[in-house]
């Protein structure tokens, strides 16, 4: 988006404003000078001559009328005012002036929204801001448990940042069964980091003992990796020049911390990303097509308030795709339990209603809309995504 015209327009305003205020200053100075001149005359004149000072003030009055400082300011002020009233119009033209017209009059429940926000702060580890918010919004009851869950997580992650793996290893050990169920080898990854840390500190013997105690349970499934780690023992002291130098990359620590956060959230029944962040990001992608639609629909506001499904598709990035969506290429309808997707013998997929329609309720074969194959409805198989 080219913001330069707007920047130029603003620079113009700022320039006019500077000009206008220096003009004002000039005018004030001028008036002041004239008054001071008159004062000088008053001071120097003979105290007895009333005529002199009267005429001096009369002169001053006339001069000020001649200068007419107010009308002097008018010119520059007018130009500034013009620029000031043009700029908002330009903004309205380049941006959507009112994005709230896509809103339904549903009035979100403030309590629910506040809860969502409070959790968001805690999820991101912004505990002091979260506390402040919960306090101000008076939502203390509902978020206490969330807070304590995430504060445990951040204690572990913060410790990892200081290269202290103990809390992480302890947590992983306590949840080792659940982690295994999820197919996560977090425990091994943590032990690996610890092992390398000990080795890097030059305590070879200790690292060997560590490996013996902690790697053994993983030997069955991760034999290859453990072999590599044991080979590291031979490179003790010069590991950074070894074929295994990648083990030392600090990125490993971040990756493991990420994995831990992911697993921690998963076990809590929470998402890895803050749901508020995800929703708002989706909103940013979804709003433009919705606004376009509202502009077209301008006259039919009522309809919008009651629609069950959006009238326009919002193309979201794939990170927002949480469910498989099948749209029948013939009927353009989304599949459902009543109208499931059907695999035809040629490998193309239509939904059941379309297959029924095209086969006249299975009474005849039909041509696949995509390839020359003849399709027998009886041969079609239902798919489960």
């Amino acid at each position, binding site marked *: *988006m080219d*913001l330069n015209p707007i*920047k130029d327009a*603003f620079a113009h305003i700022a320039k006019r404003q500077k000009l206008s*205020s220096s003009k*004002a200053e000039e005018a*004030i100075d001028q*008036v002041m000078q004239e*008054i001071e001149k*008159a004062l000088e005359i*008053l*001071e120097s004149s003979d105290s007895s001559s009333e005529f002199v*000072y*009267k005429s001096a003030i*009369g002169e*001053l009055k006339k001069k000020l*009328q001649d200068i007419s400082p107010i009308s002097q300011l008018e010119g520059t002020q007018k130009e500034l005012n013009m620029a*000031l009233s043009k700029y*908002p119009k330009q903004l309205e033209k380049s*941006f959507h002036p*009112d*994005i*709230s017209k896509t809103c*339904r009059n*549903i009035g979100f429940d403030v309590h629910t*929204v506040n809860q969502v926000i409070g959790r968001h702060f805690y999820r991101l580890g*912004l505990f002091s801001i979260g506390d402040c*918010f919960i306090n*101000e*919004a008076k939502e203390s009851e509902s978020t206490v448990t969330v807070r304590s869950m995430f504060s445990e997580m951040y204690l572990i992650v913060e410790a990892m940042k200081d290269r202290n793996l103990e809390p992480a290893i302890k947590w992983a050990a306590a949840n080792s069964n659940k982690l295994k169920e999820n197919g996560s080898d977090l425990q091994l990854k943590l032990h690996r980091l610890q092992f390398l840390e000990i080795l890097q500190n030059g305590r070879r013997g200790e690292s060997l003992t560590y490996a013996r105690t902690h790697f053994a349970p993983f030997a069955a499934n991760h034999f290859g990796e453990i072999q590599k780690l044991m080979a590291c023992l031979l490179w003790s002291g010069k590991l950074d020049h070894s074929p295994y130098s990648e083990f030392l990359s600090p990125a490993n620590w971040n990756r493991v911390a990420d994995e831990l956060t992911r697993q921690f959230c998963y076990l809590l*029944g929470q998402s890895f990303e803050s*749901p508020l*962040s*995800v*929703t*708002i990001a*989706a*909103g940013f*992608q*979804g709003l*433009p097509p919705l606004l376009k639609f509202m502009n077209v*629909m301008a006259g039919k506001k009522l309809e919008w308030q009651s*629609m*069950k*499904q*959006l*009238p326009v*598709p919002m193309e979201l990035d794939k990170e*927002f795709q*949480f*469910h*498989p969506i099948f749209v029948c290429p013939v009927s353009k309808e989304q599949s*459902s339990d009543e109208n499931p997707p059907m*695999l035809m013998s040629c490998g*193309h*997929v239509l939904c059941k209603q379309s297959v029924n329609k095209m086969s006249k309720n299975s009474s005849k074969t039909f041509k696949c809309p*995509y390839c020359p194959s003849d399709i027998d409805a009886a041969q079609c*198989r239902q798919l*489960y*995504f």
Partner: protein
Amino acid sequence: MEMDSLPNGNAAASIPAGTTRISPTHTTPSSKLTQLTESLKLEHQFLRVPFEHYKKTIRANHRTVEKEVSSVIAGVSDAADSDMSKDDAFQHLTSLVSRLQGLKRKLEEGSRTEHLQAQRCRARLDHLESVDAENFSEWSNTRLKRILVDYMLRMSYYDTGLKLAESSNMLDLVDIDVFQEARKVIDALQNREVAPALAWCADNKSRLKKSKSKFEFQLRLQEFIELVRAENNMRAIAYARKYLAPWGATHMKELQRVMATLAFKSHTECATYKVLFEPKQWDYLVDQFKQEFCRLYGMTLEPLLNIYLQAGLSALKTPYCYEDDCTKEDPLSQESFRKLALPLPYSKQHHSKLVCYITKELMDTENPPQVLPNGYVYSAKALEEMAKKNNGKITCPRTGFVCNYSEVVKAYIS
């Protein structure tokens, strides 16, 4: 579900394309760019509010100069036309000079404020310009924080708003000082004081008039009601003559209704009048004020957060979100989000987008969907991996069905 309403001519897009491939779902860099431009276009308020603030300061400063200079000139005229003694005249002129000096100091201070506000306007333009593909995720995080601060300020959670803005070092990107002005009025209204609100109306008289606002009238009505409540009838009548009568031409009905309370009194059981004495009238005034305030500064009437939440929830809402096995990563798996999304429409899809049950990855030409003999579909990647690990055997994770990898067939989804 209704799925057949296609009001604005998408017929062209609904003709099945004659390909056996999955439509490309990856966004190309150029479409990423248009997406970015489109979302920047949503930032009207972000630029408008500091500008309105700047404009207000400029106008106020200019008015001060005009007023002071005119009154100094008038002072000189007075001195010239009167019979002051010389000493008096001397003193008078000296006082005018010091008045002008005072004005100059004020002007300098005003210029500093103007300068800071102009700086803020520029900072916002720069912030919008600074976004690109590399810093996009960080920029989006800031954007969410901006939206949250906007919410805090509108809901009067000022401490949280300030704290969040300070901790993220983005005071120039949020409107905390603009809301200071609102805070005074709102606090007073909550304490049942009208004066600051009336002062605010006087400050913004011309613009309120332009938008045909009746907020001042509503404040006056409330003051009148309070007089009636205190059974101060004579004062109430005098007040009505002075402050309510001018609104008679445009708002006669409301005026008559309120005047009738003189007869009904505050303890009336008649619903039409009883409601006027309820405390919620004050909350209503606060809401009214917030709306006028937002309008004046070019803000949306709804908090930004609500606008984006509505759009985002609609975009994400599918019938699958409400099923028990909805993935935790979907915000709509959470009770609070489901509750918020309830009155909103479902999203609409024009193209199939298949997500693999196992890997949660998108299935497309690179990673095509494959069908087990039992009809369950998984991505090629997932099945290949499973086959490699288990000597070519595939176990369906949802049904426990076992088959050979060779029995799996490819599905073509368009």
